[in-house]
């Protein structure tokens, strides 16, 4: 916890879910959104069709590449089943996203040894930064399916990045590309007060946490 305030209960507040039987899947400070899936994009949802969508990996790689929708779908299918956590304090359990592991895209582009970080950017221009180690070895996906259907536009469809072990602002909607860098470069929310990394289990919400 980040508080410097001494612990003092709020008069009359018992909490809907007591700490003792709190779901162990809930990181600190989070609540279970159950069937809800809040939308928190700051920008207008873009009119982006699969035909318009592309995904590029460049920067410190040996072979910069751009994939079309069909080319991305030709890569080996991969899925994420598990939980997601938003910095605004909701979590969602047992979701399924279908797409392709980011490892497949990175293997084709060939990260150079000096690459340490990435900036993920969207077709809207949204950006977010990640250490390369947070998006490799089965920890990140480009996805176009939610549950059994297509990913809805307001949730980033036709395709978004997901990095489920970090707060969800890292999981850029309408993903357009990754640029590999040899340094950490804050993205949109990181410049607007959020933490650089965003680990929900350490409650890395805001700059200074």
């Amino acid at each position: 916890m980040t508080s410097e305030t001494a612990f003092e209960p709020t008069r009359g507040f018992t909490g809907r879910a007591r700490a003792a039987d709190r779901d162990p899947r809930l990181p600190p400070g989070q609540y279970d959104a159950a069937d809800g899936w809040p939308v928190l994009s700051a920008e207008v949802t873009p009119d982006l069709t699969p035909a318009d969508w592309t995904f590029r990996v460049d920067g410190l790689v040996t072979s910069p590449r751009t994939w079309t929708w069909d080319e991305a779908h030709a890569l080996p299918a991969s899925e994420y089943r598990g939980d997601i956590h938003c910095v605004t304090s909701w979590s969602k359990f047992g979701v399924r996203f279908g797409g392709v592991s980011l490892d497949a895209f990175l293997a084709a582009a060939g990260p150079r040894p000096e690459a340490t970080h990435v900036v993920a950017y969207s077709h809207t221009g949204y950006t977010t930064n990640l250490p390369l180690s947070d998006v490799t070895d089965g920890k990140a996906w480009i996805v176009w399916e939610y549950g059994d259907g297509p990913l809805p536009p307001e949730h980033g469809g036709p395709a978004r990045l997901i990095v489920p072990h970090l707060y969800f602002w890292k999981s850029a909607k309408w993903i357009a590309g990754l640029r590999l860098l040899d340094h950490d470069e804050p993205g949109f929310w990181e410049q607007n007060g959020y933490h650089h990394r965003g680990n929900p289990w350490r409650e890395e919400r805001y700059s200074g946490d």
Partner: protein
Amino acid sequence: MTDTFVPPTRFAVPGRIAVSNRAAAVWQRATVVEIRRETPAASTFRLKVPDWQGHLPGQHLMLRLTAPDGYVAQRHYSIASAPEDAEASGEIELTLDHVPGGEVSGHLHTVARVGDTVEVRGPLSGFFAWPGDRPALLLGAGSGVVPLMSMLRHWRKAGPSVPLRLLVSARTPSDLIYADEYGDETRVILTGTEGRLAAGHLAPLLSSSSLPEGGWEAYICGSNGFAEHASRLLVAAGQPVDRVRIERFG
């Protein structure tokens, strides 16, 4: 070092408003000094925050409640009051809907009373803030009007140097928050009788003859359904996509 990265696409959400992050990292104890009923479903909570560092209209904060066993619940809430109010009184106001089954809003609406303390952290986020420097077109629905009311109150207190227009949508008159405060700058749309926000409501504000100098900075706040609908209408009416800022209430 490689060069600073600039995305090869137009940045739809300019992050032009720099805010201090110092206050965001610290929880502060706040005392409830007043509770006012706004509508059957919404109440305003006035909080004294001794070390409040100031805010911009449109910003929000995180509010935290703690149970005796250490369990905490925290939620984001928009600030309703003007910065000038906080500067003069050291107090801020939040207006909350009583969400059915809501753990935090439920406590505040049914248990909290004047003299109680809660913890707050903020103000947070600069992208939805309006410092009062550009013509502002505000679209809100339901409790989405809360951060827009902070802008309207600021606009009035600071002296209107740029145009401001507010379109606020509510189902019926009894659902309309701050009903007594609206003036000529506001168009109220009662969706129960008039239907939802429509292109016809926006056309008079976005026609070439009525556009203010430099165009509008648009701020939309409400449910995701409202935000999607309103933002599409705005863009269809000619508002540039990179001059639309959206705050969506889950």
